[in-house]
């Protein structure tokens, strides 16, 4: 009897074996993000690292930690897709899209934003454990519940955006139920365990709220209570303006979730204009965005039985996007790429679902080829964007000087670039950047003060005076926090223009007990010169000397 013919196992069979898919995806993601290990600290990274003991103090190790977190998130994305009964190929493709989605680059590259990665890992692990808890029996169930509860608490504590896991958990559980038994009722059968399940989710929430209350009451720093206008202009808007603009931002985020090819590190109000009436052309784009989100909601609800994966995708996107969309409450940013880390899981679910649909089509070669080409094009461009963004996050100089070119409409980036120029002693370039920033956002007092100070350093006191006066008329962030800096510079400008009475008036306002910054040092020196100047009016010299004498003993320069 002859032996049955066996097909020889080729190299390709080994390489494309299902067990190797996830490691290969993780390897690819690691290779694409590997150049980030050469980066230093940017923006608030250094202070973030010093405040969080679990982060390494060295930039290299910190970035390695972020990379490890991202790879862990990709692995969890694969697990979640598999748990929704998608095929291994579909889950791998979804995880690949998640791992190489360029919108994630900010969350991965900026150490401060790595809280989003942590929030995702903890939240998704908690979701997986929660569903495990429901499906198992006995003591394991209690143990899984306690672990899920702890993970939820840690996720909420990592970042406020993790609160989106609460509504999503309900969506996730419903999708899982519908996949197991599509004819099941809307609500699960009530039993005593339902109370335990509810406690697993609610207890960490209550502890978080209690802690939040405690921290705010005793005056500890919990988040940033002074929302800066440059970070979120919607914080100061109400009613129509806020909702219309928020929908516009949502539309932009949705588009960027699908095509993350034009990225920037800032989206301030000079990038997203505030919509003030329905006659504004942006209003119509905002309406389209609102309709798109509504369509997503309706379609997701309609397909909750037939296509639970799509229901879960729509639910996930809406839960997380709406939570941080300035609809329910005001967040600290109008929009940030890094906070869109978790909503991208919705795209992975969608891709996984499409993969299985296309694979199931009989003889659907053109469809399959089209899907492969689309996926390839998307992955290629997304990888390239990640590779291009990585060196930009090397340090503040590389980031801001580049970003002012790619996002020329951002006043905040122009001001940040000016700060880089000032640190390098390039006052003329700083002045040009600040003039642009002031043109983009004439209502920002901080920019006018920086510009006035730069004009002073350039030896243009008249222009400095005019710029500083504009700061008084500016609306945000409110003149109070920068009043001493403003008056010190203004006093200096008046002194240089020999307008002594105004200078002394400003000097009296500039005498704060705590501040000891460069403008104050310059002002002190200038006032001393003025007191010793015999040609100046005696009365004013005496007044200045009195003010200076009153002030000096209290002054202690920082060590």
């Amino acid at each position, binding site marked *: 009897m002859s032996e049955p013919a066996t097909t020889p196992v080729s190299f390709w069979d080994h390489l494309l074996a299902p067990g190797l898919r996830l490691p290969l995806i993780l390897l690819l993601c690691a290779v694409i993000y590997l150049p980030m290990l050469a980066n230093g600290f940017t923006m608030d990274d250094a202070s973030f690292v010093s405040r969080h003991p679990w982060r390494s103090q060295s930039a290299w190790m910190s970035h390695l930690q972020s990379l490890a977190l991202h790879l862990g998130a990709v692995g969890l994305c694969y697990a979640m897709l598999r748990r929704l009964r998608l095929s291994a190929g579909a889950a791998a493709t979804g995880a690949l899209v998640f791992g190489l989605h360029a919108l994630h680059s900010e969350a991965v590259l900026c150490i401060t934003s790595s809280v989003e990665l942590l929030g995702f890992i903890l939240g998704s692990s908690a979701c997986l454990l929660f569903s495990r808890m429901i499906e198992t029996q006995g003591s394991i169930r209690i143990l899984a519940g306690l672990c899920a509860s702890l993970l939820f608490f840690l996720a909420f504590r990592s970042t406020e955006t993790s609160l989106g896991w609460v509504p999503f958990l309900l969506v996730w559980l419903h999708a899982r139920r519908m996949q197991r038994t599509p004819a099941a009722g809307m609500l699960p059968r009530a039993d005593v365990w339902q109370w335990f399940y509810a406690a697993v989710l609610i207890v960490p929430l209550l502890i978080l709220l209690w802690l939040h209350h405690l921290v705010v009451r005793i005056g500890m720093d919990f988040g940033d209570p002074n929302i800066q206008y440059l970070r979120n202009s919607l914080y100061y808007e109400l009613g129509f303006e806020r909702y219309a603009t928020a929908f516009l931002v949502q539309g932009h985020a949705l588009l960027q979730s699908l095509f993350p090819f034009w990225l920037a590190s800032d989206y301030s109000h000079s990038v997203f204009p505030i919509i003030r009436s329905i006659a504004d052309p942006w209003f119509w784009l905002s309406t389209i965005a609102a309709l798109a989100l509504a369509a997503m909601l309706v379609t997701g609800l309609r397909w909750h039985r037939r296509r639970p994966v799509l229901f879960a995708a729509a639910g996930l996107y809406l839960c997380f996007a709406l939570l941080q969309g300035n609809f329910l409450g005001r967040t600290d940013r109008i929009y940030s790429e890094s906070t869109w880390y978790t909503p991208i899981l919705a795209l992975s679910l969608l891709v996984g679902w499409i993969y299985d649909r296309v694979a199931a089509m009989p003889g659907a070669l053109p469809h399959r080829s089209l899907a492969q080409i*689309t996926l390839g094009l998307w992955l*290629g*461009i997304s*990888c*390239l964007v990640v590779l291009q963004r990585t060196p930009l996050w090397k340090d503040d100089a590389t980031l801001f000087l580049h970003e002012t070119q790619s996002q020329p409409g951002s006043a905040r980036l122009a001001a940040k670039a000016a700060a880089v*120029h000032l640190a390098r002693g*390039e*006052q*003329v370039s700083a002045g*040009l950047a600040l003039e642009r920033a002031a043109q983009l956002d004439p209502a920002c007092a901080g920019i006018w003060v920086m510009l006035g100070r730069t004009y002073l350093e350039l030896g243009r006191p008249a222009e400095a005076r005019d710029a500083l006066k504009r700061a008084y008329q500016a609306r945000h962030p409110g003149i109070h926090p920068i009043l001493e800096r403003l008056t010190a510079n203004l006093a200096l400008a008046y002194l240089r223009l020999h307008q002594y009475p105004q200078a002394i008036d400003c000097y009296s306002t500039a005498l704060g007990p705590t501040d000891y910054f460069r403008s104050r040092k310059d002002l002190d020196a200038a006032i001393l010169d003025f007191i010793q100047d015999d040609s100046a009016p005696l009365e004013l010299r005496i007044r200045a000397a009195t003010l200076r004498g009153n002030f000096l003993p209290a002054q202690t320069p920082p060590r």
Partner: protein
Amino acid sequence: MREGWKPTGTAWLFLVLLIPTLLYLPALRNEFTWDDRVVAMGRDGDWVRPEVDELLAPWSYFALPYWPKGNAGDDKLYRPVTILSFALRHALFGDAPLPAHLLNLILHLLAILLVFRFLRALSGSEVACLLGALVFGLHAIHSEVIAGVVGRSELLAFDFGLLALLAAFRATDSHTRSRLGWLALSSACLFQAFASKENALAFALFLPIASHARAWRQDPARPALLWRQWFPLVLIHTIGFLLLRNEALAGAQGNPITWLENPWADLSPLARIPSALIAWDYALLLSFFPFDLAVDHGPGSLPTVMGPADALFWLAALIATGMALLVLRAIRYRRRAPLLFLALAIWFGFSFITSNIPFAVNLVLAERSYFIPSLALSLLLVWTIEHLPEHRAAPALATTLLSAWIGMNAFTILERIPVWKNNQTLATYEVVNRPDSVRMRIVVAQYCLLDERNQEAANHLEHAIEIAPHLGRLKHDYGLVLEKLGRLADAIDAYEEGLDGRIDDQRWTLRLRSRLARARKQQQKAARPPR
């Protein structure tokens, strides 16, 4: 759409031409940049190039060098057909940039079409040939050639070269009187290719090699008799072209290669060749993954190997061994895998002359020099498609990977085109892209000076001096900036250091001396007590 309609080969070819057209369309808004202003324009302010400004008799161009007289460019370059094309364009449209860019785009589309025809002549698979043509059309390393008007020389050389090849193929296949006609066309095109750019001379070797490869595709056992057929043709043209060139450049002195153009030019072969090998390897990498492009790959951008004591020397030796093994293997399997043999022949053959290995040229690495060699990638793709593994997932994987590559190239092209808008956009972007490029730092510093951003100019030049502390020309620019910043004593030091440093062009010595004298006079004037 009609029921049952399926796209034909022509429709697919139209699509293959349409995609690059759409991607390169923004280039039509660009201005004249970099060398364009000196070489391709008839007039630019006070600058006049008479042979472009006024259309001469066509044969007159065969007596002219490529660079205009009195310019610092390499006066040993000879590209009469390219200058004739500039003059014709100028006669028809003046110095408007749009027609100049449009013509480049049209020539690129013609190149894609010719690549398709060339691949069809070598392979039976239409899909593979279409994909090969698409890969050539979307190869991002071509962006410099298409976006810069002076890239015309590459385009003309490639188009004429491939036309010569295709006509030669037809001549081989014909057995009637038309054979002579095809031969005449081939020979005319070959000569035009030579006269468009010097590196087209490699077509003299590539023409018989391609003919052989084509013959081996049909019959691997076919004896190598084609050399005899092609030898007289290529020999006559090569000698004729070299004689003409010699006559036209009779008075040329040959400007010395400056350090900024090529820092390896003065080095011993033991240092130059390993450095060039590393750059050549980098270019090979760029030919496969052209996603990190730059205008300048000069000093500061690529490492210089200082001799056998340098660890990079041994890396270069390893690269050389690898490349030699690759070439030997391709020669060995030339009959079994003629497409691979041809791919290697075109890449190595066309890039070797400008690689700084046989002799130093006036550049370290120019992306435009890899326009013709990148045809190798299309040949490689056709070969890969023909030899795709039997695994069921292989076509899906290949499709996804190829799409990813195409997507990356398309995105890179879209990003590079606006960079080439004008000299300022180019320099401003490139200094961020290649912060260690001395050349770009100098150019950006000049733009900063124009805007009175003196401190920024000083910072750029300080960065450049860190990389090239010995360069006299840099010290001249730095001294000038320091003077503007009011640091007269530092400026005098910079001028003095500049005179002690390396100066490739004696004009810089004169400038340095004159600046130094003036600065000293100013210093004395300032030190003199007021009367």
